[in-house]
């Protein structure tokens, strides 16, 4: 049971019996499945971990940014002369110094490192100043004079629809709509015609932000040989690398990006940020290392968080509760730039089909530009909002149809190995086991609809990708790669571009290598997240790292094992197939005393083959969809989660308290159970924050004071997030049924467990006091208003009433697999899908550069 060598196992005496998850005798796993101290744990508790702001080089200067004070304005003039003359100032940059546009998606190259001609939100960076000290840089920023000509500002999707001009951007699908989508899978209207009941809901999900504890920071270092190195708190060093080369107009081979340990990402550090590019440019201009660390207010401006989304959901059911057709409309408030927004827009519709059978489906969506910090990906990337809508919608349907909400879901589970109406290929599905676990664990069958008034249970489910099936810049290259170097000491160095953001990716990499080679975790030396030294991994987003890095690591380690086995087999004169790699030795399974310590095995192999290094890589299988937009949603495998929440609501004040959360997650296999538990609990926590209190909202200053749209709350104190006191007890069930695509059967856990938490709260509130809150965060005042509404004879509901009247035109028609479809659209021209640019399939269909 105890792994070999020095990898510290936690409380090994508490390891599970052999029948329990993680120690299946047939698997004979020694590292995987056993709780172990994360490989970076020692550094994190001693203060030794180097986050970006902890790094300093000789001659470092400090940079600050001057940010726009207006939400939408033309820049008339910038006067930096006073700032340049200030003590200590060594460099000043404006937009003209970096005119090349950039953006994370090839289809949304709409940002500039510093604004060129106009500013689009309060906080948009305009000038960068570097000085010997941070104080001097800040003082000099105050001396910069910028004159603006204000433009009409747009605060919401409704305002964007009403205000096609002035354009926030000179691209997009229509006026100030960045993106407009209409997709139809199958004969949806026929489906509605067959329905016994049709239910409709309008729901709203307020925007919120990641609030990582670490403020973004970066250090740019000019190197000899015309090179530049950027250390940054980033989840995606590979994409930062690409953008730096583009904007700095340097060969990518001269740019190196090193992802530091990230102090919390949650999606918020997966874009490329102005300050990263400006620091690099400043380093090139001044010839000195340049450090920039954002303050907390600036972190709120960087944002890229959860989109506010208004949703209209219409579903036809049979009287048995089966869904026969669904039409989902979503409207995203995108903020001032594209960011991941085109992908986000598709994601609000993509995963509606992977949990329950849905034979016909239509999805319409718009994303509007508004003069607010840009929205982007946050944990569960834009699938969280429609999941909230769907799971509350199902709860209402169950009530109206007189079916238990758990049974409604269990009866309609998507079968394993399905191709959905929108052509997602789904493999293993642990959702049924998840639902049964939380139903049994919570006493649902006895307690739902049976608790005293004010106390309630709510159930909801969710699903998430285990890695996006396609890379952002579409190509046929591996999406993850690992190189191993074996040396004579028995140390195995693993090189990989993955970025450790706290989720434990370093530990997954080390565990996969150690497991295959039968060595200890501490025998694996890691070099990660360095575009100069490590092979490309696309980064820590879309819950892709465990699966993709794990698969690449296993392949590299198996290749190394084969080499060692060949050499050792020769030495011991036994067939290679009989050799076992375990406990730091390579030995004959028929005669376990005959063997070599791992280091000697490496030496034998080095004698035979020369220096030893192996590689492994991974690319996901090709998805069956061939229509425009089918690039968003595919994944090698999907994780599933189910949640039951118990809540106590004061029927007078609407104040409520979450008393208990039961959550089950379909993990496939837990590589390290204790870190898996941490991801589940962290996901529940973050979901509760969104459900209960977190909101990134804005207000207008009075006309006399610029009428600007400013953050209501750009501070941690005012941006309410749960503390120790708001976190309820959580009972977690890890459902382990190894998935053939996953490394040792593992699926994702970083994002999925968040999804069911939010609708579970809304459903629990209904069970407690009989009112429907159709938006989040759920404030006590909403419950109170709904109760008052109910008392006055109303429907007892709080939430949005209408969805804007948008002409979505002719949808792109894609016959479903059941209808004999082949994954292609049948009316590409009629639907007005443009060729060449502006749509997501271009983003996932070819690189931005021809």
């Amino acid at each position, binding site marked *: 049971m105890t792994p070999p060598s020095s990898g510290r196992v936690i409380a090994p005496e508490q390891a599970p019996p052999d*029948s329990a998850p993680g120690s299946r005798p047939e698997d004979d796993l020694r590292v995987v499945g056993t709780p172990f101290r994360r490989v970076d744990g020692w550094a994190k508790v001693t203060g030794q971990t180097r986050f970006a702001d902890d790094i300093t080089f000789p001659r470092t200067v400090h940079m600050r940014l001057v940010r726009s004070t207006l939400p939408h304005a033309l820049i008339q003039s910038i006067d930096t002369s006073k700032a340049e003359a200030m003590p200590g100032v060594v460099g000043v940059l404006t937009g003209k110094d970096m005119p090349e546009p950039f953006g994370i998606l090839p289809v949304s190259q709409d940002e500039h490192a510093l604004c060129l001609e106009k500013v689009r939100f309060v906080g948009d960076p305009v000038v960068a100043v570097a000085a010997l000290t941070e104080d001097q840089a800040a003082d000099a920023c105050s001396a910069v004079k910028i004159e603006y000509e204000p433009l009409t500002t747009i605060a919401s999707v409704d305002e964007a629809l009403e205000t096609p001009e002035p354009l926030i951007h000179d691209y997009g699908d229509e006026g100030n709509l960045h993106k407009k989508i209409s997709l139809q899978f199958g004969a949806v209207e026929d489906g509605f015609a067959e329905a016994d009941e049709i239910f409709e809901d309008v729901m709203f999900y307020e925007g919120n932000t990641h609030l990582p504890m670490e403020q973004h920071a970066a250090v740019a270092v000019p190197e000899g040989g015309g090179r530049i190195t950027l250390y940054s708190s980033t989840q995606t060093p590979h994409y930062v690398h690409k953008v730096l080369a583009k904007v700095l107009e340097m060969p990518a081979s001269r740019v190196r990006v090193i992802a530091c340990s990230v102090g919390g990402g949650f999606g918020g550090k997966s874009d490329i940020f102005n300050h990263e590019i400006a620091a690099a440019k400043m380093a090139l201009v001044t010839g000195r290392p340049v450090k920039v660390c954002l303050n907390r207010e600036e972190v709120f401006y960087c944002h890229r968080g959860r989109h506010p989304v208004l949703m209209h959901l219409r579903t036809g059911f049979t009287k048995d509760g089966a869904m026969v057709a669904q039409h989902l409309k979503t409207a995203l408030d995108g903020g001032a730039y594209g960011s991941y927004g085109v992908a986000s827009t598709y994601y609000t519709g993509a995963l509606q089909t992977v949990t329950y059978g849905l034979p016909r489906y239509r999805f319409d969506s718009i994303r509007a530009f508004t003069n607010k910090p840009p929205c982007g990906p946050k944990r569960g990337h834009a699938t969280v909002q429609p999941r909230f809508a769907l799971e509350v919608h199902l709860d209402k349907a169950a009530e109206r149809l007189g079916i238990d909400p758990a049974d409604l879901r269990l009866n309609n589970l998507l079968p394993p190995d399905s191709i959905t109406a929108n052509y997602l290929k789904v493999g293993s599905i642990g959702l049924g086991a998840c639902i049964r676990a939380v139903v049994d664990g919570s006493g649902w069958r006895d307690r739902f609809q049976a608790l005293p008034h004010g106390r309630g249970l709510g159930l909801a489910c969710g699903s998430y990708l285990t890695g996006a099936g396609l890379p952002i810049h579409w190509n046929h290259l591996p999406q993850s790669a690992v190189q191993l170097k074996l040396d004579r000491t028995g140390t195995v160095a693993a090189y990989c571009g993955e970025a450790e953001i706290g989720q434990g990716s370093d530990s997954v990499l080390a565990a996969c290598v150690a497991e295959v080679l039968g060595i200890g975790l501490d025998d694996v030396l890691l070099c990660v997240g360095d575009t100069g030294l490590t092979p490309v991994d696309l980064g820590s987003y879309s819950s892709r790292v465990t699966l993709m890095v794990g698969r690449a690591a296993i392949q590299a380690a198996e290749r190394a094992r084969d080499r060692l086995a060949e050499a050792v087999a020769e030495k011991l004169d036994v067939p290679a197939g009989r050799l076992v790699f375990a406990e730091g030795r390579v030995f004959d399974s028929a005669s376990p005393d005959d063997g070599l310590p791992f280091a000697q095995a490496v030496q034998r192999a080095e004698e035979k083959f020369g220096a030893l290094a192996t590689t492994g890589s991974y690319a996901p299988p090709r998805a069956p969809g061939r229509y425009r937009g089918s690039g968003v949603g595919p994944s090698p495998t999907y994780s599933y989660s189910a949640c039951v929440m118990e809540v106590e609501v004061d029927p007078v004040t609407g104040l409520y308290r979450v008393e208990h959360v039961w959550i089950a997650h379909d993990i496939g296999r837990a590589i390290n159970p204790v870190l898996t538990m941490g991801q589940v609990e962290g996901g529940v926590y973050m979901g509760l924050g969104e459900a209960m209190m977190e909101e990134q909202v804005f207000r207008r200053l009075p006309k006399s004071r610029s009428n600007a749209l400013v953050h209501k709350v750009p501070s941690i104190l005012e941006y309410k997030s749960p503390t120790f006191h708001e976190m309820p007890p959580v009972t977690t*069930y890890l459902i382990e049924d190894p998935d053939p695509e996953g490394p040792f059967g593992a699926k994702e856990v970083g994002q999925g467990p968040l999804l069911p938490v939010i609708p579970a709260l809304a459903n629990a509130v209904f069970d407690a006091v009989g009112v429907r809150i159709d938006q989040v965060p759920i404030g006590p005042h909403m419950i109170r208003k709904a109760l008052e509404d109910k008392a006055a004879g109303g429907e007892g509901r709080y939430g949005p009433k209408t969805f804007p009247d948008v002409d979505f035109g002719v949808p792109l028609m894609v016959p479903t697999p059941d209808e004999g479809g082949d994954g292609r659209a049948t009316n590409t021209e009629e639907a007005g899908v443009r060729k060449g640019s502006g749509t997501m399939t271009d983003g996932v269909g070819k690189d931005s550069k021809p």
Partner: protein
Amino acid sequence: MDGYRTATLRVNGQDVHVVFPTHHTLLEVLREECGLTGTKHGCELGECGTCTVLVDGEPVLSCLALAVEMEGHSIETVEGLQDGNELHPLQAAFADLGAAQCGYCTPGMLMTAKALLEENDDPSADEIRTALAGNLCRCTGYHKIVQAVEWAAGVARGDAGAGPAREALFGSSVPGEGS
């Protein structure tokens, strides 16, 4: 030097002589003049608890304390927690349980928890939550932190049976699946 001060600060049991701008906080002086970057910053406004250090044994937000006021006081940071190369029981438990995920709030959590354990060697889970409620963590959902403090308190008391529950490591037994 106008606007600068010299001071001798007692940090982790050693006197450190520093020169710093008079308005700089203890946080800035620790990180920038003492080279002790283990103490982190999350807001520099006293809102998140990330920068917590101990001053004369009490948790203090170093972003709100002026360094000039710290002469004559004893300051402890995360770098002073270890005994030689041995981890403090809090450090070991945080590392083992994944109570440090990204690890950014961890130094502040550790120092606040140390002050608690010095006052109360057997705190209840509620007492731990109350003591740490001023420290925000976005990764863990807090449970692993509470469990780590309980474990460390047991270890510090010499309780041989101290350790996390099986459910904390593996999750609860799935109903209907035995064990």
